């Protein structure tokens, strides 16, 4: 047996070294499987929790065109949740099990969604900065070593880049609009900039899972590398928008060929992660409530399917 496990490990290592994809039926180390489930679940949960701050504005969208774009975006997020839960199912973990872990707080979602959307401009900033940061994180995942995750990410990234553009375009309309609209846009950027930088996770030296994930080729770049890439992309975009990023230390560094930026308040990050953000309780309780209030619907679908041999809802 030990010799078998060793042989499997050798095949697995060779596949990684050759940049081949690991597929659901392939042998994989238990820790690799667990790490992928953790990451994919967190990603799926982020998609469905992330619907809430944006759905908050569907009923108040200020034009029918914007309303259609926003509804389509929130719908895409539900769809992304579906692909990701399905991809996680290929590793033998059901959607119900993962939702249960989300509802009981045993699995996390991206902390950014624990911030509130206070004005219409927040919808634009979520598209521009939050989806922008997500894309920076996710594009490398299209080359992740686990096949189903990588393929789900190809599709998701295409839609995310559309979301990012619509957010930018929404903000452009505001920044070129009335004084009140401009102020609304600047206020939203002021509130979301730092939390967006935190989306890349703790600095490399403090990141719990990074080194192993990189060795497994689940992760391709370090947190700090990706954060820097994001800052470099955002600075000229903010200039194009005519909006100011709220960091007095932000300036081009000729020697590094990158923008320098000020220190991130990691204490805030830790607090929000620990459940003390402005909306942690609200987000998870809405999710739980929707799930609990929907229990009778799911039971009805299952009962009907059992009676009539139909696939469940």
């Amino acid at each position, binding site marked *: 047996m030990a010799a078998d496990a060793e042989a499997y490990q050798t095949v697995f290592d060779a596949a990684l070294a050759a940049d081949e994809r690991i597929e659901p039926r392939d042998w994989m180390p238990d820790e690799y499987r667990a790490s992928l489930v953790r990451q994919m679940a967190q990603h799926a949960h982020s998609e469905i929790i992330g619907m809430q701050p944006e759905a908050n504005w569907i009923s108040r969208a*200020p034009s*029918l065109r914007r309303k259609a774009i926003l*509804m389509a975006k929130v719908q895409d997020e539900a769809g992304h949740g579906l692909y990701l839960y399905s991809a996680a199912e290929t590793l033998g973990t059901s959607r119900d099990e993962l939702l249960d872990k989300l509802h009981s707080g045993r699995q996390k979602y991206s902390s950014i969604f624990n911030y509130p959307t206070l004005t219409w401009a927040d919808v634009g900033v979520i598209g521009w900065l939050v989806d922008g940061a997500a894309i920076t994180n996710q594009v490398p995942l299209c080359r992740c070593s686990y096949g189903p995750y990588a393929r789900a990410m190809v599709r998701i990234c295409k839609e995310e880049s559309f979301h990012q553009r619509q957010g930018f375009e929404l903000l452009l309309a505001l920044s070129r609009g009335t004084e009140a609209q401009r102020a609304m846009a600047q206020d939203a950027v002021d509130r979301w900039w730092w939390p967006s930088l935190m989306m890349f996770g703790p600095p490399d030296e403090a990141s719990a899972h990074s080194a192993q994930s990189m060795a497994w080729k689940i992760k391709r770049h370090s947190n700090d590398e990706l954060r820097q890439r994001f800052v470099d992309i955002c600075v000229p975009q903010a200039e194009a928008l005519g909006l100011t990023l709220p960091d007095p230390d932000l300036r081009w560094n000729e020697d590094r060929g990158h923008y320098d930026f000020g220190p991130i308040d990691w204490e805030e990050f830790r607090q929000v992660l620990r459940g003390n953000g402005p909306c942690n309780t609200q987000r998870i309780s809405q999710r739980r409530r929707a799930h609990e209030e929907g229990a009778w619907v799911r039971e009805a679908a299952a009962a009907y399917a059992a009676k009539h041999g139909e696939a469940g809802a």
Partner: protein
Amino acid sequence: MTAALALGDDALVLSHRLGEWAGHAPVLEEEVALANIALDLLGQARVLLSLVGDEDELAYLREERAFRNVQLVEQPNGDFAHTIARQLYFSTYQQQLYDRLARGDGPFAPLAAKAVKEVAYHRDHAEHWTLRLGDGTAESHERMRRGLEALWRFTGELFEPVEGCEVDWTALHDEWLARITAVLDRATLTVPEGPRRGAWAAGAGRQGVHTEPFGRMLAEMQHLHRSHPGASW
């Protein structure tokens, strides 16, 4: 363009109500499905309202009494069964109405020809859920029964002739009732027996008389747009 306003407002208002489900649906597949239906309806509303004037002025700057939608579509979502009952009544009506308009040579024929395909999906969705809920568990059966019952009194108005829609309204009504009866029968439910319209003005949405929840819905929908007069978004 009475007809464009009536049909456009139906689609606009129902789309808004369905949009309120975002983030609250009982299962992830329904987040996608309800948003999909809401988006189809919003698309239809935008085409129809644009035949009358500026879509945003019409949606955001009219007072409640100027809206011409039927009262059925403005009814609050309630539980999932209530929403499905509203969807069943309305999408069956809309599918049959649009099917007739598409086959006619009136001004709505091209729009109806496109929309009828979308609406056929909305009806399928509502019928499938009516079957699952009606013939699912005792609880779902009871909730579905209550939803159908509560909204029944708003169904009479659907068949008030709309000026500019050249269709046989009596035949439309009979066909609607036959289809609803058949679906409810398969779902082990029965067609409600109460009156099809209220004693006072229920059934006057087409004349601009609405129900209390509608004013609140418009207040929310219109407030941001109205807070920034003349702004572009």
